[in-house]
């Protein structure tokens, strides 16, 4: 079996997150692999529908939950459109886990601030559950999550679950005009909401993921709040094919996002040419 051959996995659960975004739970068909499969928060995989091809997403479930993996995706391309058609019981392909990860173990004793925009919550959700499943190892947990509209918020049940916990501070927001009647969260873009929430930067790390514009605008705000570039982590998305450092597609300057990333600190981002 060569490195490009996928493992087979069965779809055991699916959740329609929004009109165009869904979450799949996958269980490996190979029993030994199902038992032994391990990964770190932030790693990604190549998911495939046979006949449509492969697509790259992070693993959206936490490494603390074993026996399955989950992915969340928006149906925008050929493969994601096909993944949107699969049903419980169907077989899909998976290669991974690939890439580096969030150094969660280094954050013990620190406050963790999560900031996500839109579908950018998927990779962050993996880290959130990883931290919450080991809750007493960390300090305060703050989540700031925004989407274009109430309908575009993903993981709605989990947002409620996190909001109900006393050991998590969560702020949800929707872009102006995206609110509905009865919306009790914030109205405004993610960046000013982060600024208003003002999580303390001392002994804290921030995890940031979202559309390029959200990342670009939020980085300076975090700097203003006192977060050092080394304490801000993000995960980059670039088009990939192999995920193995061969196909030459995901380079940003001399960095192979699939091998040197996808997780980078803001300090590392500043070293890269502005081509992402």
């Amino acid at each position, binding site marked *: 079996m060569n490195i490009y051959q996928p493992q087979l996995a069965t779809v055991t659960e699916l959740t329609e997150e929004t009109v165009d975004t869904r979450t799949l739970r996958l269980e490996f068909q190979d029993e030994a692999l199902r038992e032994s499969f391990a990964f770190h928060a932030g790693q990604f995989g190549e998911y495939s529908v*046979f006949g449509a091809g492969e697509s790259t997403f992070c693993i959206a479930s936490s490494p603390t939950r074993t026996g399955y993996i989950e992915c969340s995706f928006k149906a925008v391309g050929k493969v994601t459109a096909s993944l949107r058609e699969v049903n419980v019981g169907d077989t899909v392909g998976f290669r991974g886990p690939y890439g580096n990860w969030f150094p969660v173990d280094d954050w013990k004793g620190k406050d963790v601030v999560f900031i996500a925009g839109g579908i950018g919550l998927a990779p962050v959700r993996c880290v959130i559950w990883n931290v919450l499943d080991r809750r007493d190892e960390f300090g305060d947990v703050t989540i700031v999550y925004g989407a274009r509209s109430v309908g575009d918020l993903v993981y709605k049940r989990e947002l409620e679950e996190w909001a109900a916990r006393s050991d998590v501070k969560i702020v949800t927001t929707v872009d102006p005009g995206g609110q509905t009647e009865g919306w009790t969260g914030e109205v405004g873009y993610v960046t000013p909401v982060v600024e208003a929430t003002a999580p303390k930067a001392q002994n804290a790390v921030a995890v940031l993921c979202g559309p390029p514009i959200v990342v670009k605008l939020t980085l300076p705000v975090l700097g203003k709040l006192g977060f050092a570039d080394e304490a801000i982590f993000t995960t980059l998305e670039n*088009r990939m094919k192999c995920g193995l*450092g061969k196909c030459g597609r995901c380079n940003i300057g001399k960095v192979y996002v699939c091998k040197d990333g996808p997780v980078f600190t803001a300090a590392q981002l500043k070293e890269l040419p502005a081509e992402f």
Partner: protein
Amino acid sequence: MSDARFISENDLRALAGELLAAGTEVIAPVAVDACASPSAMASSACRMPGAAPVDIEYRPLADAAELDLERGLPVLSLKQYFLPEHEALCRWHQRGTTIQVEAVPTTFAPRVVLAAKPCDSAALAVVDKVMNWDYEDELWNGRRAATTIINLACPVVDVSCFCTAVGSAPDDSKGADGLLMPVEGGYLFEATSAKGEAFAAAHAARFAAEAGGGADLRGRQAAEERAAARAKAAGNLEIDAASVRDWIDAHFEDPLLAALGVRCNACGACSSVCPTCHCFDIVDEEEGVGRGARRRCWDTCQSPTFTLHASGHNPRDNQNARYRQRINHKFAIYPLKFGEVLCTGCGRCTRVCHAGQDLVEILQAIDIAARRPDSAVAATPEPVTP
């Protein structure tokens, strides 16, 4: 390096014949009719009375007589025999919701490449690095392991050749198992790897050990030709590859790098003919109802869709950015990551470009920029000769 052996042209052809008779695939330069395709037939070169233009291509020999030893540069490099234009990575069969995945073989029958170009074998050794830097590409490695490559020293084809500027040479045996040097009456052969030694041993009867006055004469001939070819290649382009690398790395936004793609129209021919361009796409192809293959196909960073995200965002959204990537990857990114320039100076990209992009010219311009005294990375100034 082993002692030189001599082989006559007749013996070399006979050796190819022996391999073929034993069922071994022999890949070698072959002269083919350049007017065979309908589009070529219509071209003026093919319509001239009595015209019979030929292309040189690496082909599996059907007969030893086809072996072309005239030393022209094949249209495509040897890359196609190690990273095929497209190949199956696995196959699937679907019945209902049950899918079975079938592996493709990663071991290959032994084969021999005769009269390979030194720039083409060197390219394989360069690409070996990316194919093995962490995950090992078994398909590439399987074909590499199964192949014995015997180079034929190159006379340097034309002004687009610049192998000596990027660390290779017309008589290089990098990536190969042996080297044939043309001399009076035949070739001197040097085995440059264990595989090359085994090749010579298996065909010992075809080789003559070199001794006495004849050997001295042929040795001198070979040395003279080697020196002349190296000088000819060096005359086309001389650069300091290390300062070119460092300058590109430090000058991503420099106007020189930011305007390179102005003539390029993204056809990607340069990547197809390049012996070191290895970027690929992976796509699924149906082969019938409920079955198909996942295939990898050559791709090119010059295509606008290469980095296009499904969201519509494109990190390299203009041709200048894409051409800069080509230069950056070959002369800075790869050397910094793997210690090798991702180019062996074959010059095919320049010859094939219908827009007139000339890599010799581009490298010269970058080299000049890197030598400028105000260049931020001019770590070692030009030595001043009194």
